[in-house]
């Protein structure tokens, strides 16, 4: 049982900086996900945690112990690899037993032939076999112990890899994109199983992924990384609803958030894409801001007006209960994507002109440098004769 403290850890390969002074405290028993696109440094951070890579500067503690310079095997961490990294020449049982054999048997006792006859070897080996069997049963792979990894399906290999990590009861589990090699259906199933495993074991999990749905569904907290920097660390719902950085807002959420570039025209009013939006007071006049709108923040409006975007429908994607409307709005750059409740939007077709309204308190505003602008006072609504549909009609 151990929390993790990452203190200003940086890593560079030659002149290329991969991690820039990342600091993060992970609580004991927490499920923390490092989320980011490939190349953002999340795997490097995990490898530094495991001790497979060495940081250029900064310090790491696991539990109360500083582990800089401590070898991977002595850090009390276990790791599950994206490729599973099972030893192909060993049976499942031997794969799972290896961490225990390396720890509980001396190098003499591990000798291929003679080791068996040394005092104590038999008793220890029997205990190892029992531990392996118990772990395998718990993961539902008890019947596979005599097989080799090559004879197993992807999901089974995944379980063996988890079993090999689990069997020695580490204080910290490190997982490097463990679900990437599975098919979509199995991925959803294993997602639940890993979450369940975390609950059962109650130890710290650090999980690396580029898949936001994995991050959002499994984690206690998500740490969003980009270009070697930690942008935001927060619970999933907060990451989504209250991003601190434009890049976080853009990375999280599917379909993507629409961010319009606007200019603050008057106090409390920003101009963009042929319309005006109510914004909090106190933003400097003339400054450039990004106006972010999540797809589900849009509601159908009857006519053009303040807080309303108007454009022609480029594409309608039916998703069953919802539909995604891609709207070409003059001056918006990329198409705006809105998520509408299917039953309210039956008449919608491509090529039509559509008005989409947004309640001002659902806007996410970003400064020119990408930082979030938080309202210091409630935003006054400039839609005096609100042409936005009544609240109960709102599409969420």
């Amino acid at each position, binding site marked *: 049982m151990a929390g993790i403290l990452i203190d200003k850890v940086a890593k560079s390969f030659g002149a290329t900086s991969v991690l820039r002074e990342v600091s993060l405290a992970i609580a004991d028993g927490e499920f923390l996900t490092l989320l980011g696109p490939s190349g953002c440094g999340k795997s490097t951070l995990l490898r530094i945690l495991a001790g497979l890579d060495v940081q250029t500067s900064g310090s790491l503690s696991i539990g109360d112990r500083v582990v800089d310079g401590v070898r991977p095997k002595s850090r009390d961490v276990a790791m599950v*690899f994206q490729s599973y990294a099972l030893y192909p020449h060993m049976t499942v049982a031997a794969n799972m037993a290896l961490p225990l054999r390396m720890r509980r048997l001396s190098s003499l006792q591990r000798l291929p032939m003679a080791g068996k006859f040394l005092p104590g070897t038999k008793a220890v080996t029997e205990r190892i076999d029992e531990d392996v069997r118990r772990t395998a049963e718990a993961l539902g792979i008890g019947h596979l112990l005599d097989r080799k990894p090559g004879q197993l399906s992807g999901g089974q290999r995944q379980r063996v890899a988890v079993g090999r990590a689990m069997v020695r009861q580490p204080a910290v589990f490190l997982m490097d994109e463990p679900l990437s090699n599975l098919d979509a259906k199995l991925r959803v199933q294993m997602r639940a199983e890993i979450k369940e495993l975390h609950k059962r074991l109650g130890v710290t999990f650090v999980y690396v992924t580029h898949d936001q749905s994995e991050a959002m569904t499994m984690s206690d907290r998500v740490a969003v990384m980009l270009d070697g920097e930690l942008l935001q660390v927060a619970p999933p719902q907060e990451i989504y609803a209250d991003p601190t950085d434009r890049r976080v807002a853009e990375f999280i959420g599917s379909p993507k958030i629409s961010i319009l570039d606007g200019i603050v025209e008057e106090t409390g009013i920003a101009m963009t894409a042929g319309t005006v939006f109510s914004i909090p007071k106190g933003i400097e006049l003339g400054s450039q801001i990004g106006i972010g709108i999540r797809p589900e923040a849009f509601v159908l409006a009857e006519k053009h007006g303040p807080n309303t975007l108007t454009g022609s429908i480029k594409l309608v994607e039916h998703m069953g209960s919802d539909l995604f409307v891609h709207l070409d709005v003059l001056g918006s750059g990329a198409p705006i994507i809105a998520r509408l409740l299917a039953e309210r939007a039956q008449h919608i077709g491509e090529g039509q002109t559509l008005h989409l309204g947004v309640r001002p308190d659902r806007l996410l505003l970003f400064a020119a440098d990408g930082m979030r602008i938080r309202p210091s006072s409630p935003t006054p609504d400039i839609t005096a004769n609100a042409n936005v549909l009544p609240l109960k009609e709102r599409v969420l």
Partner: protein
Amino acid sequence: MSLAASTTAAETGAIASNGARKALQRHRIAETFTAWSLAGPALVFLVTLFFLPVFAVFAIALTDWQFGASTLSFVGFSNFKEVFADEGFRASFVNTILYVVIVVPGTIILGLAIALLIESGKSMRTFYRAIHFLPFMATLTAMAIAWEALLHPTIGLINQTLVTLGIPTANWLRDEDTVLSVLAAIGIWQNLGYAMVLFLAGLKSIPQDLYDAADIDGADMWLDRLRTVTLPMLGPVTMFVFIVVALRAFETFDTVQVLTQGGPGHSSEMLLYTLYRESFQYLRTGYGSSVAVVFLIIVVALTLIQARVMDKKVHYQ
């Protein structure tokens, strides 16, 4: 009317399908012709240069034919009886086996060690790779002459060095006790680079993840890493190196011919040299052919071992 119409339709259908069948048949014939004409040249060469000679060797092994003679008579298996009764052949056979038993493990162990050293080093990898691979590329006959100079009992570099260091010397190539070991050492020296290059390629293909997993699992000392990851993952390469080096060791001829001519006595005689001497120096082609048959059986057996037994053990499926 409708009946007539339907009959016509059916007939048309039948004709159409008949035509289609013929077209298909023509297509098949054309395909077969293409296949044979493409494979033909290779097949002709294979038969005339390989299968016929092998068959001829088997046939000649059962006769008393002498090279260039106009008559021959069938003698059954008496050549083989003579082969196995002949002390010279038995010495040659035992020497060859001994030679292979020294050269194959020596080449594999040293080749792997050098590959591991080169792989773990950072600088001059290409240089080390090149100098170790050179002996394999060089003409062995020329190299054998160089070795002869090195091994010369009085003016050779090896003995002069040993004298300087005060270590007893030997007449390496004329001494029954040392000659086979010296030939084996040259054999190892020659094959080392080949084994090394293959092992280097094999090492490159081992996923880094496995070493990482071994580190975390606690197998992080070099011997544990070697046993847990490197050696098992090199299984297929090792198998290949084993077979190729064993075959090359069995067919050692150049060094024997240039350096010892099988001497002193029979102490450095090997199968291929015996075969050559019996067939082309003593012109006892029938006898030589039966040696060739024995040699062929060994080679085929080795290849079969690879295909059947070992293949399953080194590919972990």
